Each structure stands twice: as structure tokens, then as C-alpha cells.
């Protein structure tokens, strides 16, 4: 039976420690078509693609048929060998090598079987490739001298150079301009004509409708459905993406909403966000919704003094403040629970106690010397209060589970006694129990009169926890919705821009 499908994935599941990322999902891609994957952040699109190209192994029980034959893919090389290549969302050029060296990285042309690299042949082949794609760049240019858009185009050329029959494009247009998108679409149509199939991942609705033949929708690690593009419109698509019942319970408590604590006016940072204005009041939880890369994290980093603002003013208690370093922000009673626990949160080689104490050392020291009794008891109390599961305070934080690490970091910030608490994806990658505890805590903090700003890419969380939701798209605020007006559809519409 020769199938009309080039790729048939069925019953694919993937479990990460504590999280079921994919539950028996399927994906069937027809030969010579563009097949788009849609879903919110964390719906499972990227995980599925990583399974397909051999970065993650799937749980047992699933099956992948490529060109009708069952295959097992253990590595990216396996995938490339079969004719599957991927353009990753995050580009990884080698900056001080030329375009042709980058394209042929790991499979350089050589003179015969020797180890002398044949630069001439590589440059020539690259030139042919670029000409064919109508990209006017010199193969001998260094990658570091290319614009992001051109870097992206080179990545696309690289993926095509493998002569793959199936190319996965993960957000290929996130960094390029309208004109280049048109160019890319032309390339995609050319590939289609040659019988190449494309799996296309993007959050941009207009693109999806313009380029796709079929669309498969995922939600919360589950397969929702596959539709021909003619059967869908934006509204239908959004409702399939977000159409879950909001059955999860959030411990939202009534809190007295008071005066404005923090106000941001026209904040801009070139290349990241512009014209950001919002305020948050005492007792309020202000949600920040949007897709990944919308610029929410960058705004908060600038407010906290990690990066410099180009323009804009920040007011706390109505007074203009000048925050140039996080220590200034902490001085103004702000706290920032960062998005990436490992990268900007935990001190992995240090103990639970030191991880809790580090942002409020002045409390435990007299003229620089630590009061061991004070630091031990206060940190132990904080850890007990947040229900951190650790055998001792001396335990290294790297030995704790993600949820417990997160609780330690929350404890760290509560020790600084903040009035304004910014939490960035506070429950990402942690188990359900710890998640509920953190939700409860945030509500209690609001009730105690703190202002909470919560960035979250999980719609139910944002809707369930926030009093107001600010939605960002592409570095700009696209809307603000009150709690009683906020629906998944409304927020998703604004997030898509």
C-alpha cells in the first residue's frame, strides 16, 4: 500500500519527570503539502518535533511511519539520513565561519578521501543553492556580518541543502520582515512543487492561512484534530486551540484593591519592546499574557534594573524612581522571581539555606558578620512556611525537585519582604501539587496587600489568578482585559496580534 502520507505518527506519548508532555497524539502529513501545527505554548508541538528528529526519545507504544515504512529515529543524524531536516526557532550559526562553511558544517567537501577541505567546491555549491533560492549573498561572507533575517535565510538554505523530503520549520518568520516572509513563502511553494513536504509551526494566523494545506491542532499535550485549511477560519481555530473547559480550580481569594503601587509609563527598549504603560495596585494580581517572545520577560527585566531602558519612567507609590541595578529594585521593595530557574534563579552548588538567605543578607549580618543562629532559624522558618521538602537546610539545592527549588526561590524573595512581587512563569515545569501551593501563596500575598505581577503563558492560570490581564504581542501591549471580561478566546486573539 503506497500511502498518500509521507509521515504518519500515531500513539506518540512523552513523559518528562512529573509532566505528561504528549498523550497518544497523532500527526499525518500528506506528501507535497504544507502542514501547520497550532497550539498554545506548551501544547506539545515542539516536543513532538523533537521526537521526530531524534532529540527526545518517545515513550514506548507509539509508531512512526516514514514513506509508509516504520522507522526508529535515535538522533538528528538518523533523521537527516532519512530525509527529515529541521529549521530551529533558535538559530545557531558559527559566527566566525563563512556562509558556506556553516551550510556544510559536519559534511564538508574534501579532495577525494583526504582531510583537506575543498573550499572552492563548497563555495560553488553554496552559490548555486543561494541562487536557486534567489538569496543574494556571497558564500564567503562571515555569519556574524549577516542580519538576523539573512541568518534565518541561510538556515533555511541549509535545511534545503540536505535534499530532505520533509522539512520542519519552527517559527521561521519570527525574526524576518514582511518582504522576506513573501520570499520564504515563494521558496516553500517551490519546494512543494518538487514534492517536498513541510511541517510549519507558527503563531501567526495570517501566515498559517496563507501557506497551509492542512492544520493539526494540539492542546495540553493532546491531539485535538486535523483540518483542511478551507474548513477553518480564525475563530474556529482559536476555539479549537483554547477550547478546554476551565475545570482547574484556582484558589482566588477576594482581596481589597488599593492605591497604585507601581506604574510604568511608555517604557521602551530598542529591539525588545516599545511604549509599555501599565500600573498595578495594592492587593491586585496583574496577569501578563502573550506568546513566547512577546517581550513580557524583557519588560520586567528592565523594570528590575537588569537591563537598561531606552525610554520611559517608573513610579512607585507615585514617586519617580531610578532603578539601575537589581539592588535598587530590591531597595524599593520589589522582587523578581525569574522565568528560568536554573539560569537566573538557583545557586546550584549552594545549600537551601544560602539560597534562601542570599537576597536579604543584611538581615542576618551585623557589620558584615553572619549571625549563624538568626540565618539558620529564619531560613528554616521560611522553608517550613513554604512547605519545602528538604532533608536539611544544608542540603544542596541542586538535589531538590523543580517544585521545591521554586519554593526555595519564592522563600528567598519573601525574606526581602517585598511590596511588589513580579513572578515570571511561576509554575513552569513543576508538579501539580507545588503548582497549587504557589497559586495559593500568590493569592495570600495579594490579600496581604502586595501587588503581584504574574507573567504566564498558561491561559487557565492567567485567567484563573489575575484581576486584570495585560496582553502583549511582538513587544507591544495589544490590550488589557478585566477579570470578568477575560475569556481564553479574547486573550488568545490579542496575543496573536
Amino acid at each position, binding site marked *: 500500500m503506497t500511502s498518500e502520507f509521507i509521515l504518519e505518527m500515531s500513539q506518540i506519548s512523552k513523559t518528562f519527570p512529573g509532566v505528561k508532555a504528549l498523550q497518544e497524539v497523532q500527526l499525518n502529513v500528506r506528501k507535497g503539502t504544507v502542514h501547520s501545527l497550532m497550539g498554545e505554548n506548551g501544547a506539545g508541538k515542539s516536543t513532538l518535533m523533537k521526537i521526530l528528529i531524534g532529540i527526545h526519545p518517545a515513550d514506548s507504544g507509539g509508531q512512526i511511519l516514514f514513506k509508509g515504512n516504520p522507522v526508529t529515529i535515535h538522533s538528528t543524524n538518523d533523521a537527516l539520513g532519512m530525509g527529515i531536516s529541521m529549521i530551529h526557532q533558535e538559530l545557531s550559526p558559527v559566527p566566525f565561519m563563512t556562509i558556506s562553511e556553516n551550510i556544510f558544517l559536519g559534511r564538508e567537501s574534501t579532495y577525494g578521501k583526504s582531510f583537506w577541505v575543498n573550499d572552492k567546491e563548497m563555495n560553488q555549491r553554496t552559490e548555486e543553492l543561494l541562487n536557486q533560492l534567489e538569496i543574494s549573498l556571497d558564500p564567503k561572507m562571515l555569519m556574524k556580518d549577516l542580519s538576523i533575517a539573512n541568518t534565518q535565510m541561510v538556515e533555511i538554505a541549509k535545511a534545503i541543502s540536505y535534499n530532505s523530503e520533509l522539512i520542519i520549520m519552527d517559527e521561521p518568520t519570527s525574526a524576518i520582515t514582511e518582504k522576506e516572509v513573501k520570499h520564504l513563502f515563494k521558496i516553500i511553494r517551490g519546494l512543494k512543487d518538487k514534492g517536498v513536504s513541510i511541517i510549519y509551526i507558527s503563531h501567526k494566523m495570517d501566515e498559517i492561512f496563507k501557506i497551509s494545506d492542512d492544520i493539526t491542532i494540539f492542546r495540553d499535550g493532546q491531539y485535538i484534530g486535523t483540518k483542511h485549511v478551507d474548513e477553518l477560519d480564525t475563530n474556529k481555530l482559536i476555539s479549537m486551540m483554547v477550547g478546554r473547559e476551565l475545570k482547574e480550580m484556582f484558589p482566588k481569594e477576594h482581596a481589597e484593591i488599593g492605591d497604585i503601587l507601581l506604574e510604568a509609563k511608555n517604557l521602551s527598549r530598542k529591539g525588545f519592546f516599545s511604549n509599555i504603560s501599565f500600573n498595578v495596585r495594592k492587593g491586585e494580581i496583574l496577569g501578563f499574557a502573550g506568546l513566547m517572545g512577546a517581550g513580557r520577560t524583557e519588560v520586567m527585566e528592565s523594570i*528590575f534594573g*537588569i537591563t537598561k531602558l531606552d525610554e520611559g519612567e517608573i513610579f512607585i507609590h507615585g514617586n519617580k524612581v531610578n532603578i539601575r*541595578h*537589581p*539592588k535598587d*529594585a*530590591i*531597595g524599593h521593595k520589589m522582587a*523578581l522571581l*525569574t522565568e528560568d530557574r536554573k*539560569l*537566573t*534563579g*538557583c*545557586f*546550584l*552548588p*549552594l545549600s537551601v539555606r*544560602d539560597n534562601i*538567605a*542570599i*537576597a536579604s*543578607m*543584611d538581615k542576618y*549580618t551585623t557589620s*558584615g*558578620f*553572619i549571625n*549563624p543562629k538568626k540565618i539558620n532559624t529564619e531560613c528554616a522558618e521560611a522553608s517550613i512556611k513554604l512547605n519545602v521538602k528538604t532533608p536539611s537546610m544544608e542540603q544542596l539545592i541542586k538535589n531538590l525537585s523543580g517544585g521545591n527549588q521554586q519554593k526555595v526561590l519564592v522563600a*528567598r524573595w519573601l525574606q526581602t519582604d517585598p511590596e511588589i512581587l513580579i513572578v515570571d512563569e511561576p509554575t513552569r515545569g513543576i508538579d501539580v501539587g507545588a503548582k497549587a501551593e504557589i497559586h495559593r501563596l500568590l493569592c495570600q500575598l495579594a490579600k496581604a496587600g502586595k501587588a503581584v505581577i504574574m507573567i504566564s503563558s498558561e491561559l487557565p492560570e492567567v485567567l484563573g489568578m489575575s484581576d486584570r490581564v495585560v496582553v502583549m504581542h511582538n513587544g507591544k501591549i495589544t490590550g488589557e482585559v478585566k477579570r470578568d471580561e477575560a475569556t481564553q478566546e479574547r486573550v488568545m486573539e490579542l496575543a496573536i496580534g
Partner: protein
Amino acid sequence: MKSESIVEKKNNEQFKAMLNIFMKKYAILLIFIVMVIILSILSPAFLRPRNIMNVFRQISIIAVIAMGVTFIIITGGIDLSSGSVVALVAVVAASLAHPNQFPLIFAIIGGMLVGALTGCISGTIVTKQKIPAFIATLGMMIVARGAALIYSDGRPITNFTPSFDFISGGYIFGIPTPIYILALVTVVSHILLKHTKFGKYVYAIGGNSNAALVSGINSTRVVIMVYTYAGLLTGLAGVMLASRLSAGQPTAGVGYELDAIAAATIGGVSHSGGIGTIFGTIVGALIIGVLNNGLDLLNVSAYWQQIIKGVIIVGAVIMDKRKNR
């Protein structure tokens, strides 16, 4: 019967877990003790008090440098300039120690200040210019050597006031002065690292510099202070060396930086930052000292000693990697 065996098994497991923790914490000390036992069996002269004091005296200069280097490595940096700075300090201190010129304390303080200044410069370059410590201190290593040669005109500076000899050659209650100096530096460094806010910040910066920034730590200031403190101790080591050699030798101290780094590394100070103790570094320095001394007593050739030392340094790091897995 059956339940007893379960209890036994559980005890056994607990014992194993405790042993594991103990081994992780004190593996390096254990190695040291084993070395001492083997050497004392092989050579009866080894355990004589005179010999033991000799070992301490020999390691004192390197160990004082290694205390400061420990701070630097914990922040994730390195210091290649210690050996040259020792020479620079030695000639400066020697020139301040001529008889009937200044009080002796001038030579000591002056030498230490010169050391601190070099550290302060290196630390400033590392933080403000964001130059890798390897390169910044490589530059300082070459510059300090040149400065030592210029200052001394390339010749040893001699003619000290006799009391200057006391720093490295004297005895208090029958114990050599350098041992007191080393003990003092060790205690101060340990307190600084373990019992002050500064020390916690040192670990935090090396453990995760991004998180340190978010936590409001002024890393620039802390790192400059770390290099300055290390320079101060290197300065003290330079004074000790001038006293021991009875001369400010502009060509002295070659390779000291590597010995100091080796002591810290054997002692479990991690070059990826955030991990290490003063206790470990002292044991590391002792291991090197005992090894040198023991191999000498056993008449092992100096050439073979080099090979053994090199193997032990790399072996220590391999072991460290394993236990941290």
C-alpha cells in the same frame, strides 16, 4: 528473623549513606592521612617533629598565596600573576628593610600594599572591562615581573636589618614564625569565606553570576575585593620569601602561581566556581608538601616527583567530578 534482617539491611543502608556523605566531605583528608601513614612506615624520619615543622615551613608561602587564590577560583576566576607579584613585592619589601631606615613594619605593610594594588588592578580589569581572568592576570604576571626587574635593576636587593630574618627564620615557643603566619591567614580567610556576607556573595557569584545579579549583589565590587584580598596575601607571601632568601630576588617565585592553583584544586576548589573551602586548600597544600618531603626522604628523583605531582593534581579533579555526579 526476617524482620531482623530487614532492620539490619536498613541499618546497613543508613551506614552506607553516611559513609558516602563522609567520603564526599572528607575524601581529600582521608587521602592525606593515608599518605602520611604510608610515608611514616616507609621512612621513620618522616614523623619526627622537626621534619613535620619543616613540611609546614616549606608549604607556608605557597599556602598563603593559595588562600587568596581559593577566593578567586570560587568566584570562577584564576590568578596567574601570583609568582611574579611575589617577586615584585620581595624587591620592594627588601628595599624598605635596609638597616636604620624605616621601622620594620614599613617593609611588611608596604609589601602587602603593593600586592593588594596589583590584585585591585587585575580585579578591576576583570570586572569593568569584562576581560577573562586568565588574560588579565597573564598580563599582570608579565608586567609585575618586568616591574620587579626594573625596580631592582635586575639584581637581588640585600642588606637587611637583622630583625627582618625573623619573619621566615624565627621561632616562637619553638615553632617557626611562618607557621603562625599561615595559621593566622587560614583562620582569617576561613572566617571571611564562611561567616561573612562577603563570603556568601563570593560563593553566589561563582555559583551563578546571573542569579547573583538578580539577587541584587554588586558583583563588580565583590570581585574586585576578592582580587585585592588575594593580592594582599600574595604580598605577605612576597615578604615571607624575601625574608627566607635574605634577599629581594626579582627572579624568584617562578611557578608559585601554579603551585597555589594546584593546592586549591587538589583541595576540591572547583574551577567552574561556587565550590571550595579553606580547609580543603590547606589539605591540598599539605598533600603537595608531604609529597615533596616524603619523596625527598625516599630519595625519589626530582624528575619523578614532577610526574607524580602532575598525576595527583589531575587525579584529584577526576575524583572530584565523580563524587559530584
